[in-house]
C-alpha cells in the first residue's frame, strides 16, 4: 500500500515536472509578448508584467502584413497536405493491399527520402524550381513540403490500412463496388482517424517550415509565409522581442486550435492497431 502511494507521488511529480518543462516556454512567450521591451532583461525577472500590453496584438497586425503571411502559410500547408494525402493514401493502400514484385523494397526506398535531412534537399530542389520558374511562388514550398511529408505519411497510412480487415473491401466489392470504389466508400471513411492524424502531421510539418521558405520565397514579400515573415522582424542591431513574441503567438494560435479540435482523432489515429 505504502509502495503504491510512493509510486503515485513519483508518477505525479514526474508528470507535473514534464508538463512544466513543456509549458514554460509557451508561458514565457506570452510574458515576453505582454511585457514592455525594457522590462525583459531586468533581474530578478518578472513572471508577469505590471501592466500587460494587451494592445500589442492589434498593433502588430496593423504594422505588419501578418494576416497575409498567415494566409500564405495556410495555403502552402493546405496545398502540401492535399497533394501529400492524395499520393500517400493511394501509395499506402497499394503497399498494404497489393503484393507487388519488389513492393517491400520500394516501400523502404520511399522511406529513405525521409531519412535525408531537409537541408540536403534544398540545393537540388532549388535547381529544379528555378528551371520550372517556381522560385518566389508558393508552389515551390507546396512541392518541397510534399516531398518531405509523403514518405512518412505513406508509411503511416500503410500501417493504418494494415489494421483494417480485407474482408471489408471484399464485402464492398461483392456488394457492387470497384476496387477503387471500395476504397473510397468503405476503407477511407473507416480510416478517418488515421487520415486526420496523418493530415495533421503533414500540416504541422509544413506550417513550421522555415528553411524551404527562406530559400525559395525570398524575393517576393507578398508570398512570405508567417515563419519567414517573423524572422524579418529581427533587426540587425536592435530586436523588439516583445513584438516578435506577439507575432509568434499569432502564428502558433491556428495550429493550437487545430490540435485541440482534432485531438481525439489524433490520439485514436496514432494508437490504432496497437491492440491487434
Amino acid at each position, binding site marked *: 500500500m505504502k509502495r503504491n502511494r510512493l509510486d503515485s507521488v513519483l508518477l505525479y511529480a514526474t508528470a507535473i515536472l514534464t508538463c512544466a518543462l513543456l509549458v514554460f516556454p509557451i508561458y514565457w512567450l506570452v510574458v515576453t509578448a505582454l511585457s514592455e521591451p525594457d522590462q525583459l532583461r531586468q533581474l530578478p525577472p518578472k513572471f508577469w508584467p505590471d501592466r500587460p500590453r494587451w494592445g500589442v496584438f492589434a498593433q502588430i497586425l496593423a504594422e505588419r502584413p501578418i494576416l497575409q503571411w498567415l494566409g500564405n502559410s495556410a495555403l502552402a500547408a493546405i496545398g502540401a497536405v492535399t497533394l501529400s494525402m492524395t499520393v500517400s493514401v493511394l501509395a499506402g493502400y497499394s503497399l498494404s493491399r497489393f503484393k507487388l514484385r519488389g513492393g517491400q523494397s520500394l516501400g523502404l526506398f520511399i522511406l529513405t527520402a525521409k531519412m535525408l535531412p531537409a537541408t540536403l534537399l534544398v540545393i537540388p530542389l532549388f535547381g529544379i524550381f528555378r528551371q520550372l520558374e517556381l522560385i518566389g511562388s508558393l508552389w515551390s514550398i507546396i512541392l518541397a513540403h510534399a516531398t518531405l511529408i509523403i514518405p512518412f505519411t505513406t508509411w503511416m497510412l500503410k500501417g493504418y490500412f494494415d489494421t483494417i480487415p480485407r*474482408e471489408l473491401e*471484399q*464485402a*464492398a*466489392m*461483392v*456488394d*457492387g463496388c470497384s476496387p477503387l470504389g471500395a476504397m473510397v466508400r468503405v476503407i477511407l471513411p473507416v480510416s*478517418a482517424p488515421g487520415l486526420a492524424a496523418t493530415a495533421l502531421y503533414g500540416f504541422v510539418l509544413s506550417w513550421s517550415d522555415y528553411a524551404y521558405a527562406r530559400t525559395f520565397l525570398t524575393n517576393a514579400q507578398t508570398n512570405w509565409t508567417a515563419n519567414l515573415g517573423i524572422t524579418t522582424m529581427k533587426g540587425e542591431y536592435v530586436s523588439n522581442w516583445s513584438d516578435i513574441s506577439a507575432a509568434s503567438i499569432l502564428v502558433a494560435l491556428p495550429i493550437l486550435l487545430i490540435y485541440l479540435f482534432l485531438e481525439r482523432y489524433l490520439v485514436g489515429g496514432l494508437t490504432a492497431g496497437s491492440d491487434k
Partner: protein
Amino acid sequence: MAGIRIEHVTKSYGGLTVLKDFSLDIADGEFVVLVGPSGCGKSTMLKILAGLEEASSGKVTIGERDVTDLAPGDRDIAMVFQNYALYPHLTVRKNMGFGLKMRGTEAGEIDRRVTAAAKILGIDHLLDRRPRALSGGQRQRVALGRAIVREPLAFLMDEPLSNLDAKLRVHTRAEISALHKRLGVTTIYVTHDQTEAMTMADRIVIMKDGEIQQIAHPDTMFREPANLFVAGFIGSPGMNFLQSPVTSAGNGAKACLFGQEVPLLVANASTLAGRDAVFGLRPEHISAGPGPVSFEVQPRLVESLGSEQYVYVDLPPENRVGQAPHAAAEEDGRGTALIARLINPDGRPLAERLTLSFDPARLHVFDAVTQEAIR
C-alpha cells in the same frame, strides 16, 4: 436463383497448388457445404466463386452465365464473411441497403426490402444502430440480412458461425437452415466443423489438400465414406481404426481383430487377401455386453456425459494403425486406442473390466495402401 457449375478449377500460388481440378455441379436451390481441415482449399474455392480470387484455370458458371472473368459485383451473389465484415461507419439500415444502393435501386425500394429482411431476422429494432453497438449474434444476423436483401442468385457463406459461442452457434445454425428452406436460394457454405456440415447440407463436399475426397448426402457420407480420410473426418467422436492382415479361406475373407477371427461381410473384401487392411468401426456401433464379436477390455478412461459414456480402450498392438489417416485422429489417439460410445441412461458406473461387442456387418474396410474404401 440459379444452379452453379464449377469445371476443372485449379488455383496455384507460384509452385504451390492449393486447389486441384475442382469440379462440382450445384443444383438450383441446393445447400452445399464445403468442409475440410484448415488449408484444404475450401475458402479459396469460395473466393473464386465470389470473384475475389482469380482461378489459375477452369470455368465457373452461375445460372447460364460464364462468370469466370466477371468482377464480384457483376456475379449477382451475396457473401457472408467469417468476421461479418459489416461497414463500421454505417448504420445497420445502411449496411443492409449498401449493395442495393450500389446497384442503383430506388431509395423507397431499398427501404422496403431492408425492413422486410430485418423483420425476417428479428433485427428491425436495431436498424439505426452502428455495428459496434451490436452483440456477436446480432452482427451475424445483420450480415445475413445484408445478403438476403439483395435477393441474389446464390449465397456464399465463409464459416459464418465460427465467431459465435457454442450455444448461439447451434441456434444460428438452425436459423440459417430455416432461412434457406424459406428462401430456397442456392447456398454454398464453407466450414471446418463436420457437425455444421452434417446438420445443414443437402450435399457435403469434403476436401483435403485442395482435392475433393467425396461429394455425398450427409447420411451417405456417414454410412459409406469413400476413403479413410472421410471416414475419420465425419462423425463425432470419429471412427475407430484398426489394422489387420486379411486372410481368405473357403468361407470368405477374415481379419484378426482383438485376437479373434472376424468375418468380413463386404463383397470385395477377398480382393485384399494376403494384404493389410484398415477397418473402421464407429464408436456408436460398439455395445456393452456380449454380441456377435465380443472382447473383454480394461478401460483406460471413461468419460460420462450423463446419458452416454465414452470408453477409451487400448488397441492390441497387432491392430494398431501405423499412420492415423487424419490429423484429428492422431490428436485423439485413434489408431492406438478405441473409443466406444455407450448409451447408459441410468448413468451406472462401469465395471473395471467389461465386455464390449460389435457386429461385423458394421465394419468399414479400407485398403491400407490406397486408403480407398472396399465395398
